[in-house]
């Protein structure tokens, strides 16, 4: 297996911005909408190159979602950009009726997801968005792990016809996936083979899982690590194949355990192969102000938590 190394710290939102810029150059149907967060979403380059295809809606997310739904009628592929909190909870009914139920080809692109948004605190740190979006029939939910994967996902979802929720983050984090790797919606990626425990991680937790895997190796625990960027539809095959070998699983995500990736995996395991599972996720709580690193540590969303969890779960097999 390839050993993943940090190619340099980059924010996932820049992966979105650069992917969008590329789409602007290659696909005339792509239209971008933003609710007064163009800089934060890294949409400035697209705006500069395609002023006629960039729609500034102001601080009016409900209107933005409706306009995006309408733009699809006539063949446009709208990408909406705002923070995850304002992309989901604030506009749930607009997404539900005008986009999901109406099966509109809208790409809801959500930055600053989770607690790594940091100092702004809980009003802006949504930890419920994956749950909100995965419950909508027909909605594809993607949560990317680094710059390269976010850029690839942004480009790929334009080719897919149907509503997509693309979730990414604010801070600069290690960029470690291969920039040439093709992004396949609904396909998990085996990052590291192992035999004692399966670690299934999404978003910022994938790097933490890789770090944990190295440490676990030193104490004689062989971890198989899977990068799940698509939470819905979930690649249950890669998960079931892995637990058939390891016999236990840890899910890791920057989200409440209610409604997150872990719960989706629990359903797959319960129905097919009920092995022990630990969930690394926030425990039914709101976030708070702090640096991303402090928050990930306080809420147990880092490699240390995964290592502790792995040492514990292998005894329950």
């Amino acid at each position: 297996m390839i050993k993943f190394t940090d190619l340099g710290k980059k924010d996932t939102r820049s992966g979105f911005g650069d992917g969008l810029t590329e789409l602007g150059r290659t696909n005339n149907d792509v239209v971008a909408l933003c609710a007064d967060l163009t800089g934060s979403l890294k949409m400035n380059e697209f705006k500069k190159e395609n002023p006629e295809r960039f729609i500034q809606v102001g601080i009016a997310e409900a209107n933005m979602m409706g306009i995006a739904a309408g733009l699809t009628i006539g063949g446009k592929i709208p990408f909406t950009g705002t923070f995850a909190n304002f992309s989901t909870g604030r506009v749930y009914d607009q997404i539900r009726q005008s986009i999901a139920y109406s099966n509109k080809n809208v790409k809801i692109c959500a930055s600053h997801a989770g607690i790594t948004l940091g100092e702004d605190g809980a009003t802006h740190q949504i930890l419920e968005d994956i749950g909100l979006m995965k419950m909508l029939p027909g909605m594809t939910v993607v949560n990317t792990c680094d710059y390269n994967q976010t850029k690839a996902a942004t480009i790929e979802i334009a080719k897919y016809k149907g509503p997509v929720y693309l979730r990414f983050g604010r801070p600069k984090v290690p960029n470690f996936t291969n920039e040439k790797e093709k992004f396949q919606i609904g396909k998990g990626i085996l990052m590291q083979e192992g035999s004692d425990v399966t670690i299934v991680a999404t978003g910022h937790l994938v790097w933490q899982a890789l770090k944990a895997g190295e440490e676990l190796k030193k104490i004689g625990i062989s971890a198989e690590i899977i990068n799940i960027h698509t939470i819905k539809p979930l690649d249950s095959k890669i998960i079931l194949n892995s637990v058939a070998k390891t016999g236990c699983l840890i899910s890791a995500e920057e989200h409440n355990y209610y409604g997150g990736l872990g719960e989706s995996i629990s359903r797959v395991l319960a129905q097919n192969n009920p092995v022990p599972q630990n969930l690394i996720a926030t425990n039914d709580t709101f976030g708070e102000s702090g640096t991303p690193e402090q928050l990930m540590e306080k809420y147990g969303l880092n490699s240390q938590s995964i290592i502790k969890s792995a040492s514990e779960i292998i005894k329950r097999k």
Partner: protein
Amino acid sequence: MNINLNNITTQVRRDILRMVHQVNSGHPGGSLGCTEFLIALYFKIMKINLEFDMDGDKEDLFFLSNGHISPVFYSVLARRGYFPVSELKTFRKLNSRLQGHPTTHEGLPGIRIASGSLGQGLSVSIGAALSKKLNKDESLIFTLLGDGELQEGQNWEAIMFAAAKKVDNIIVTIDLNGKQIDGSTDDVLPMGSLNEKFQSFGWKVLKIKEGNNLEKILETLTHAKSITKKSKPIVILMYTEMGNGVDFMMNTHAWHGVAPNDEQLKNALNQNPETLGDY
């Protein structure tokens, strides 16, 4: 098209009454109030393609935001030829394409967006209008909103946006019947002068004082079309009578979402004799 719009109006009223009676549910009041308007749009005003295509390239598009008046929408679409009139009998029944509120989900020709949860149609219409502009498509977007629906805040985001961004290929009509489920709009939440509100937001405001008079509707819509593409979105304040065409359903909000019983249906149908043939 050489057609008698009055005959269609009477027949559509019958369809509405029979549809809601059959399933003892649905919204006859607002449907009857907008019958003339939808007939004017679909039979005279809009340039449409009956071979339904979601993208609606080079044709005028209509969006119904107050989706609960689905009976009149379905009847007019069927009578215009989008789908068989006989399908009206499936309204609100299991496995029907004619859901309680309009949806694209069941693939009913003529429907381009789901509506029912109020306040969303104007934003969608603006998106479709922008799509037409990007596609250099000169055709127009027509939208109908209920008046009570204007209490939803999303409308005012959309109203601000459309004027600011000069969305001038859209004609929005407000069904001003002055009534909503809990009573008159003035009792529930007075909205003040909609004329002044829209004007201050930068819209061109037109009025149809007799919103159930086909001639007046056609006159105003024709005029509205002639003043599109002049940097301003257009709104028509259309004063209608909820329950129009059935004497006991008029002058009250009681028939907003209530179906007539057997006797009431008979009485209502007697006031609207069959013209084109019942479904």
